[in-house]
């Protein structure tokens, strides 16, 4: 449903998103986890067609978000980090406005607004001015806006930020219920959040993908690991198999670097310095070892920066 392929975004000389690739299957909830400034919002803005990437591409529901932006946007709903609300409107009128832009006719809007209002618990204050609502209430109006057009793909940027613990639980409940019906990407800098809501997690730091895994596996890997990056010229499948079969190797990922030798990120158990073992494995099989170095960002560095427990009540 979503394909992100070597996405890169520069702000002037600053690289905010660096060669990010991942895929999301239909009906899946993907967590986008990373500390502040990791590049989550930037990636989501590219996915939703708000800004073009510097290079790379992203396909949503079969449409390139840059080349076929308008069509892609018809299949996406987006809840930005700063909830976009018109304070001089009521939630009901606001939802009508979004519905009109989404091409919904009057009766479709009315029944759908009742639905999402119920789901997001905004019925109680739906005719009050948005400007008079609390932070948590506004966040829910924003979520209702995203759900309104019943989109294939939902992109939610830190949907629980600024909510109190009870509202966080409620919001996560709403999101979990979207599984299967909608494809969801949600970003967060709170580690436990992903294990509670997501099927799979992309961890990103300083613009780079550090790991893609299920929450369970991540929990295991959090116990500690080191990552070594290797540039190897050789048959990719065979290289992967060989590296994976070594003891103390947790997992291997590849990414192309444009040249003919892809980069393999080999994740090893902590303190098991496998550099010699890895090198000799490659050399023995007659493949070309073009580079070997510890990864610049390790999973561990990232975990340290993440919020590892629930935020206290706001």
């Amino acid at each position, binding site marked *: 449903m979503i394909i992100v392929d070597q996405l890169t975004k520069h*702000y002037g000389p600053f690289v905010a998103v660096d060669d990010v690739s991942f895929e999301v299957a239909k009906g899946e909830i993907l967590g986008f986890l990373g500390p502040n400034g990791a590049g989550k919002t930037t990636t989501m803005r590219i996915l939703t*067609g*708000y*800004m073009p990437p510097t290079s790379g591409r992203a396909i949503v529901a079969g449409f390139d978000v840059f080349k076929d932006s308008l*069509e892609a946007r018809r299949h996406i709903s*987006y809840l930005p980090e700063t909830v976009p609300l018109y304070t*001089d409107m009521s939630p009901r009128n606001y939802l009508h406005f979004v519905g009109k*832009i989404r*091409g919904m006719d009057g009766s479709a809007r009315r029944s759908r607004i009742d639905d999402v209002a119920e789901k997001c618990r905004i019925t109680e204050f739906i005719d009050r001015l948005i400007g008079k609502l609390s932070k948590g209430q506004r966040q829910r109006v924003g979520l209702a806006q995203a759900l309104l057009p019943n989109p294939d793909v939902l992109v939610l940027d830190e949907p629980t930020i600024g909510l109190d613990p009870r509202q966080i639980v409620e919001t996560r409940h709403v999101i979990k219920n979207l599984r299967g019906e909608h494809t969801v990407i949600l970003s967060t800098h709170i580690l436990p959040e992903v294990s509670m809501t997501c099927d799979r997690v992309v961890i990103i730091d300083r613009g780079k993908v550090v790991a893609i895994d299920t929450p369970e596996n991540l929990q295991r890997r959090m116990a500690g690991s080191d990552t070594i990056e290797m540039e190897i010229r050789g048959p990719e499948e065979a290289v992967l198999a060989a590296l994976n079969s070594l003891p103390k190797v947790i997992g291997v990922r590849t990414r192309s670097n444009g040249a003919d030798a892809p980069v393999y990120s080999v994740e090893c158990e902590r303190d098991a310095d496998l550099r010699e073992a890895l090198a000799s494995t490659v050399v023995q099989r007659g493949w070309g070892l073009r580079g070997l170095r510890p990864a610049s960002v390790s999973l561990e560095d990232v975990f340290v920066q993440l919020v590892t427990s629930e935020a206290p009540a706001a």
Partner: protein
Amino acid sequence: MIRNIIAITERELRSYFVSPVAWVVTAFFVAIWGILFFAIVTSGREAVLRPLLSNFSITFLFVGPFLTMRLIAEEAKTGTLELLLTQPIREVELVVGKYLASLGFLAFMLAVTLYFPTLLEVFGDPDRGPMMAGYLGILLQGMAFMAIGLIASSLTQNQIIAAAVTFVVLLLLWLADVLTLGGAAAEVARFISISQRSQDMLRGVVDTKDVVFFFTVIVGCLFVTTQIISARRWR
């Protein structure tokens, strides 16, 4: 296409009518117009609208910035622009929708002032031709001012800056023919001078060239605004 424009225009118009700024501006200028009207009618004892209209057109130098400063700057600031730019609508639909809303409010303000010519009709026997030409002039000029203000509003998140930029640009255009001295520059200045053109119309002379000029300015401004919003995505 049309549907999106209507949705944008409708929301924006609603926003105008609940905005205290718009009402204060309306009240303030209707009051000023009333005073001018009274002063001119009592001193001249003549049923002509021209002196009044030319004063109106100067007050639009101030009305324009106030009515347009919010249009895009506010949405950029509160983040609703991010919502709009990720919806399945084109930039041009957004721009045209916004612009039509500002014209709607302009039309509303002008409608309020129809009170004055009505009084003239009731108590005197004004020449209708020049009066209608005068109103057309005011309307065209107001429309051009709104389009210029829309550009300024798309350049910044700060409404005050948008209003100030609009005011300065309008003032320069207004005074263009006065500011330069001679030669080719004077030709250009006379050409772009808005006051020259609307003064002609207030005299009752509606030249197609002037109408074309104003519409060119408007279309040009809407085009530039659309380009600015598209370009902002690239930053």
